[in-house]
């Protein structure tokens, strides 16, 4: 193929890609909104801290200033810039949400596939344990776990991830139960694969799609949970820049009329959770 011909096919290809992208956008408007929200948060998390100052810098002279062109989100009672703190917190909240969802998905699906594929006593034990875990409201369980483990970001992540893992175990197990009856599993057994190889090479990859859908939703819920824990004073602690912490601190100022210290971080929590939720809902609708 000559260079020009290559160039021509190149442009046609990119045009086709653009058109199919537009098709996707039109077919999934809500998910597109979700993706755009997440992209904005990701950019803020990635680049934001480079442009704003120190989130912990206090300035008593400018305490509780209302939002203005100079201070977009105003300042809190210590004179810290709310916008700066909100931007810096984006990194923490986004990463925490994704890591919790990822951890719960990874651990849950590994256990779930083993339970579904191997069955027997192992399955029985896993199912009863998930029943026990699911008997607690997830948030309360996470709260208890953090109280036991101690306040720190990794402990919060682990605690919330544990609360969500049973969902992934159940989802993947159910799918693995169906997948293990498929012919390719028999074919893999005939080809001399060992049982664990069949479980993790063949059944697992084909049992993940419900878990991925769930992961998007759980990431959103996890953001809410982490912020909720911080609001209650458990887990992530002040003065760290975290939206839940900021809402908790701002809640007191709210009564004195300084609405901005709690409202902005609160709105960001909602928007981030909504971004995940919109994507998750759309994936769930497309799940066959």
């Amino acid at each position, binding site marked *: 193929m000559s260079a020009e011909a290559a160039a021509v096919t190149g442009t046609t290809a990119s045009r086709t890609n653009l058109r199919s992208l537009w098709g996707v956008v039109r077919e999934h408007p809500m998910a597109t909104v979700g993706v755009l929200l997440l992209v904005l948060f990701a950019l803020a998390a990635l680049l934001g801290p480079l442009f704003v100052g120190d989130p912990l810098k206090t300035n008593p002279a400018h305490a509780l200033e209302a939002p203005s062109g100079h201070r977009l989100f105003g300042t809190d009672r210590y004179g810290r810039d709310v916008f700066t703190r909100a931007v810096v917190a984006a990194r923490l909240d986004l990463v925490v949400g994704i890591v919790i969802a990822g951890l719960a998905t990874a651990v849950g699906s590994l256990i779930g596939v083993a339970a579904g594929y191997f069955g027997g006593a192992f399955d029985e034990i896993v199912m009863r344990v998930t029943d026990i875990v699911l008997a607690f409201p997830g948030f309360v369980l996470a709260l208890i776990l953090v109280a036991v483990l101690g306040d720190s970001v990794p402990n919060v992540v682990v605690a919330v991830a544990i609360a969500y893992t049973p969902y992934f175990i159940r989802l993947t197990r159910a799918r693995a139960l169906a997948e293990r009856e*498929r*012919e*390719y599993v*028999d*074919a*893999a*057994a*005939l*080809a*001399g*694969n060992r049982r664990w*190889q069949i479980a993790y*090479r*063949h059944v697992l*990859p*084909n049992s993940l799609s419900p878990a991925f859908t769930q992961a998007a939703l759980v990431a959103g819920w996890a953001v809410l949970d982490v912020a909720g824990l911080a609001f209650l004073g458990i887990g992530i602690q002040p003065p760290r820049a975290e939206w839940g912490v900021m809402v908790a601190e701002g809640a007191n100022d709210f009564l004195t009329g300084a609405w901005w210290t709690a409202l902005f971080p609160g709105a960001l929590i909602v928007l981030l959770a909504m971004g995940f939720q919109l994507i998750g809902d759309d994936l769930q609708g497309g799940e066959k």
Partner: protein
Amino acid sequence: MSLLDVRGLSLGIAGREELLRDVNLTLEAGEVMGIVGESGSGKTMTALALLGLLPPSMEIRSGTATVEGRTVLEAGARRVHRASGDMTMIFQNPRGALNPTMRVGAQVGRVLRVVRGKTRAEAAAEAVALLRRVGISGAERVAKAYPHQLSGGMCQRVVIAMALAYRPRVLIADEPTTGLDVTVQAQIFELLRELVDETGCGVLFITHDLAAVADMCDRVSVLYGGQLMETATTVEMFEQPKHPYTQFLLESLKPEDQQGEVQAADAGVDFSLPGCRFAHRCPHVFDRCAAFPPLVETNDKHLYSCFLGQEKSLDAAQCSRSV
């Protein structure tokens, strides 16, 4: 010694009646043996039993199977030892037999690595060669494709390539062309024939398509309701069927106005009765049919399971099992 020798195989759901009763099969190297029967006649169950893939609810009541003298199946045993390279299967639904999330080249390569102990690089190269061997053009490209990107015929070729990678002594083909169009079907048959000639393996060819049997098979076994009705060379089966069920099966190929009187509607086999399983539909049914008919040999390779015409030929030495 036959390549594959199945003797007195009986299967059933645990604690319930026997589904497959006293099935005997032999297969020689380089031979294609058709296994014919209606849906539910036990064709696939027989295959799954031989491969150790029976669903957990099924149990082997009696019987043995050997490949080149090595036992591959025993009564009571659930998972039978899989002597690597003895037996493999081409499944009914090629798309289902391929892992949807793995590239087809990698799937062929997996067999080479697991069964034949090839390294990753060797396996990748040989997988492409095998795909080319089964008539896939652009094998390098196809090796990188996922099953959903290939047509049904292509998928079946990939499955055959996997079977080839296995180098089995016995290949079980379970309705390998169901759902494929006639031209592709002919190509797959031709390919299977070539493989048999090339590798000298034996093939159990499971089908309900008598035309395919005439095309492909050296010998045929007819199953009905889990009972082996008749085994003969393909030519004898079509020209001199001995068993009323085989005759009925061949009648069905004739134009409708020339068909004899057979109860066409199947009332369903009652597996709990001890007698011949075709008795409830058989036009020649008589009092002896209430017992299970032994397998009678008329000549070297022609066996059938019926009391009809046995008064003169019945000989204890020829019976595989006394009633």
